[in-house]
């Protein structure tokens, strides 16, 4: 994926297994969010993206969504003039091919993230944590098989971080969704991930289990630094 002469993600090749939590980390500008945008159909790559053995490279963002890939954004994206329930309704209504399931999907998503009782509040007036919950609920309401989370806990307090991490684990364990998560906080990422990948300058540095990755000398050199050797 290139922007003009700049290759943001360059000859990157990796696979995510069904049902796993796959973590992605790397320095700023490594191309993590660009990678998400390529998978989600925002950018057209020169390579190819396969989902459930089908080529989804040239699908639009809304088509990718209906194939079963949902995402959240690093900077919370919301319909700020709409209520929480209408935010989630958009996902339930447009993200599902089966229109009869709209209300069920909406109610379920709201209950799952714990936003019942707040449905009527306008999204623009929410605090950061509830904004992130609303964004996640809307994504869940599209009933995806794969969930892409872009720095889901950025800006949250330690307690909020703990709750959100539990929620992400529940998304994987209870809803059975495959999760790909970008996160800077290595403590959180190593706890969440079954496998991880480190990116630098749009290239894969290494892939493996959290313990493999954090001990890899190349990762320590480019990302963790010496102080984090025993992280």
């Amino acid at each position, binding site marked *: 994926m290139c922007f003009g002469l700049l290759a943001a993600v360059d000859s990157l090749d990796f696979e995510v297994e069904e049902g796993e939590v796959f973590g992605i980390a790397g320095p700023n500008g490594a191309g993590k969010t660009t990678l998400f945008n390529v998978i*989600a159909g*925002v950018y057209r790559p020169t390579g190819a993206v396969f989902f459930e053995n089908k080529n989804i490279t040239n699908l*639009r*963002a*809304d*088509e990718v*969504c*209906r194939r079963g890939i*949902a*995402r959240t*954004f690093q900077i919370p*994206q*919301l*319909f*700020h*003039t*709409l209520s929480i329930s*209408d935010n989630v*309704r*958009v*996902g339930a*209504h*447009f*993200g*599902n091919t089966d229109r009869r399931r709209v209300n069920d999907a909406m109610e379920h998503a709201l209950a799952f993230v714990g936003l019942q009782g707040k449905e009527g509040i306008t999204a623009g007036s929410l605090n950061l944590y509830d904004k992130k919950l609303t*964004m996640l609920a*809307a*994504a869940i*309401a*599209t009933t995806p098989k794969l969930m892409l989370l872009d720095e889901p806990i950025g800006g949250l307090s330690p307690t909020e971080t703990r709750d959100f991490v539990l929620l992400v684990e529940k998304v994987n364990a209870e809803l059975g969704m495959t999760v790909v998560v970008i996160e800077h906080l290595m403590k959180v990422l190593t706890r969440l991930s079954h496998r991880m990948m480190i990116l630098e300058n749009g290239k894969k540095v290494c892939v493996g289990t959290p313990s493999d990755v954090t001990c890899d000398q190349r990762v320590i050199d480019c990302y963790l630094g010496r102080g984090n050797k025993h992280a």
Partner: protein
Amino acid sequence: MVSGSKTKWYSACAVLAALCLLPLAIKDDRHLMHLLILCYMYAVVAAAWDLIMGYARVLSYAQMAFLALGAYTTAMLTLHLNSSPWLGMLAGGAVATVIGLAIGLVSFRLRGIYVGMATLALHIVLPTLIRATRPWGTGGSYGLTDVPSVTVGGYMFSNLYLVPWYYLALGIFVIFISIIYFIIRSTYGLAFVALRDSEAFAKSLGIHHFRFLLTVFAISAFVTGVMGAVYTHYIGVVSPSILGLDMFLLIYIMVMVGGLGRFPGAIIGAFVVVFLNDSLIVLKEFRLVILGSLVVAVMILLRGGLMGIGEHLVRLVGRRVFRGSRQQEH
């Protein structure tokens, strides 16, 4: 929520009943009757434009072109092919829809002001095209006169007795405004608010932006095309002046004064502007200056138009009531 929509429903029925009974009160005032008929017709055109500009947020200047396409289609069909005016109206809507879809397919690949320029191109090219195709029966610069009036079961609508026209205009007004209202309240409306608030998020949740824009653009073009045809049968003539700045600005002012994207703002705007325009006729050329200044004033001072005043008042009163109830609690 439920009681709110019920109140809305009752008040809409009450307004409709009053409009139905209005001819009894007006009696012989043909001028007033004529103005009301124009109100209904312009209101539909303004509301259809508002659907595109206010709700779908597309800067479209093709509205008058759709009106002209509908007008010319029915005039040519009825004059040259002896077609029924009713068929002509439908054909007018259909032609506007087809051209609308074509221009939408091309211009919606663009964004913002570029869509405005692409749609304005259609508006600008039409008068030249009409003049050039005079041999095909468009009437050229002179336009077409003696466009037949509509008939219902042998009864011919006449410009001497306007009551049948009044009810016809009211009927079409009710049907088209209901369609527009239904679109705004449907999931289309939800999709448009979502796309306006965050396009990236809306698309990631499965909204197909292009298809939504195109569908609503086509509906708006159809409604406008039919209205252009009805208008032509009413006044009996059509010429390239339908694409003049006068008409264009008048409808634009209605949308802006009523409040962009604030149903039923465009309708209220149409009624206000038609009567204001009529009362300013004594001022001759200063009329447009005053109307123009009105738009500038509304855009600077009253961003939400007349509907904005209502919202402002509700918020003000709401705050008072809220404060009052809080004081009582203490």
